[in-house]
């Protein structure tokens, strides 16, 4: 380990630490006894004419306490990091302590999840305790993007409807949580200029029966062939690719001519991070069941 360019600083810190600890003892030894300068139990000093200092001694055990702290610091310095870059005989590190605490926490959690690990998602859906755990996991890990109620926001999918980009079965949701997802749509600027892109946008809107310019949509229909490779001929999407269904009126990146044209011109890249390093497989299993429950539960009404 090197915090500095040379080990000189480490040596300096170690020496300064040990010397100051020894100095504390030396200072105590010098100051613990003194010659009485007068016989009226004062130190013999007088300030401002008549201000004298009474010898009002501290108890002896106080001195031993002081020596004890110095001894303690030597033992501490030996066992723990502190003398320059020396690691200490215990080999303690804050990262190691963190890892050990995490391990202990996982072990403590293991019996809680043991019942859930092999239960099918359908069974977990009916278990209020499991759903309570799922809810807390969701609020701690997912709610920042998907919202506390799981209804998402622009760019962050709504998890409470029945529109699944990659599929809404338990196994797929687990895969999504564990590995994350990167949804990519390339730029479709190749379809033509602004007029063609507008026509295509209106055709896309017509797929879900949204208000659209039917003449433009008719022109856009011819251009949709390039989109059909991923979104399918009818624009129904393809869960294998994560290509959204364009015909269900769910607009992840915004509805309307302008938003759709932006998507066509620039493409979209939407990322959900992987959680397999943050959550254990058992936690992901319970969490996936909770996510499934969001689109079924009667606590949330879908629009």
């Amino acid at each position, binding site marked *: 380990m090197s915090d500095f360019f040379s080990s000189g600083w480490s040596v300096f810190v170690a020496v300064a630490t040990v010397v100051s600890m020894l100095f504390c003892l030396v200072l105590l030894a010098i*100051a*613990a*006894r*003194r*010659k*009485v*300068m*007068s*016989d*009226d*139990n004062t130190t*013999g000093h007088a300030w401002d004419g008549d201000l004298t200092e009474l*010898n009002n*001694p*501290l*108890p*002896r*055990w*106080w*001195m031993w306490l002081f020596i004890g702290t110095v001894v303690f610091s030597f033992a501490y310095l030996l066992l723990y990091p502190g003398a320059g870059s020396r690691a200490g005989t215990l080999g303690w590190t804050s990262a190691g302590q963190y890892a050990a605490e995490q391990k202990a926490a996982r072990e403590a959690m293991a019996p809680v999840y043991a019942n859930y690990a092999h239960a099918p998602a359908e069974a977990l859906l009916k278990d209020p305790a499991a759903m*309570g755990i799922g*809810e*807390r996991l969701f*609020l701690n890990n997912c*709610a*920042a*993007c*998907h*919202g*506390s*109620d*799981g*209804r998402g*926001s622009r760019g*962050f999918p709504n998890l409470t409807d029945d529109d699944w980009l990659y599929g809404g079965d338990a196994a797929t949701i687990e895969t999504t949580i564990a590995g994350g997802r990167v949804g990519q749509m390339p730029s479709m600027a190749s379809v033509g200029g602004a007029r063609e892109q507008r026509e295509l946008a209106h055709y896309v809107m017509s797929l879900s029966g949204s208000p659209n310019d039917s003449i433009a949509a008719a022109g856009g229909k011819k251009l949709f062939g390039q989109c059909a490779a991923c979104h399918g001929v009818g624009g129904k999407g393809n869960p294998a690719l994560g290509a959204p269904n364009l015909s269900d*009126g769910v607009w992840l990146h915004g*509805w309307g001519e302008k938003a759709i044209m932006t998507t066509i011109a620039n493409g979209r890249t939407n990322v959900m991070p992987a959680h397999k390093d943050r959550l254990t497989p058992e936690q992901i299993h319970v969490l996936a069941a909770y996510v499934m429950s969001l689109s079924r539960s*009667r*606590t*949330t*009404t879908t*629009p």
Partner: protein
Amino acid sequence: MRTATRPVIPIAPLPAAGEAVWLYEKRRQIYPRAVSGRHAAWRVALVVLTQLVFYGLPWLPWNGRQAVLFDLTARRFYIFDLVLYPQDFIYLTVLLVICACALFLFTAVAGRLWCGFACPQTVYTEIFLWIERHLEGDRMARMKRDAGPRSLDRLWRKGAKHAAWGALALVTGITFVGYFTPIRTLTGELWAGQSGAWEVFWVLFYALATYGNAGWLREQVCLYMCPYARFQSAMFDRDTLIVSYDARRGDPRGTRGRDADARALGLGDCIDCGLCVQVCPTGIDIRQGLQYACIGCAACVDVCNGVMDKMRYPRGLIRFATQNSLAAPGAPSLTLRRVLRPRVLVYGAVLLALCAGFTASLWLRSPFRVDIVRDRGALARELGHGEIENVYRVQVMNATEARQQYRVVVEGLDGAALATRADFALGPAEARWLPMSVRLAAEPAQALQPGAHPLRFRIERVEGGAPTAVVSEPSTFVVPR
């Protein structure tokens, strides 16, 4: 100042000039002599009372659980019928403020009453001294044995004393931890050797603290460690009743026969027997006047009254008296009137007001708590058809030990309604975060300016369809631009 003219009676001979001395003084062992009397009886009564409460309370059952239990891991604090959450810490704060005010009041009236009669340091020292006295004898016997050669007699007495102290300290430690871990479980587990490492640690820690403080440190705690001892004198004034030696009456001191005429001998009432010093738990001579080391235990008052009785002098050479009354003796009623001075009345009024407020607040406390937090993820959400939705996290904490039904209503904003299920249940002492969406219909949404609008959540506890308790919490509803 009068203090400057007081004679200084050195306990040890002063060192001569030029001699080297330690600035860290070796401890002088104090052997307080046993004392009986009115104040000693009060102290014993208070020791018994406080310790009955302390040792007994954890064993008291209530509603199928321990009556007083501070469950730190679950963060629930049970005190008889009360279930307190960490959010209720304000009550502890107020309680401590009340204690402080009570201390101000008692101290202004009669000095260090707390120290002398109720402080755990005094109480446990008293118990430990009682054990010591029964095994090693009173002051003289203890001093003689300690000064004498090592002997089997001394060994067994000291051994038995430390064993008894240790056992009592251990019981104290277990009782203390029993306020945090159910004591029946704790004792069972300790007996079976299955308790957790932290519990064992705290039992031993508290036991060691008791043993060390009450057995070994004793007056050292009061003299050198207790910050309270140091600032308490700031609450004294010349009308505070403190343990005082009446120098006018007592001086000049001197020994005399029981039937001697003190006036003829030119002596005061103090026969200089030194008993007041022998009984003092901090080893001071009260006749030197008010000292920071005096804990106001009134042992010297009791012992001196006994001596006065034997001498057939009136009692009260050492007594609770104000400095004013000592300087200018008057009728006791005058002294009493001066004790009831403005600062005492103000302390009393503040104390009464606080107690009343505390009781009323506890009495009127809602049986559940609510916390409304706007969702951190999204400010507002536009739905199709121009509706606007805001998301909230509603935390509801059930402060009862029964399962309860709740219902949420949104009010204060026209056209706003809850889009999530409005009713839910909480188990005993359970707290839950519930995500809730509030939806504003299109027309009122268009009529509103963009920005935050006030909104209230009314949470009702429902029993059989009728609300039995209501909490109303403000929040805001955001209309986006």
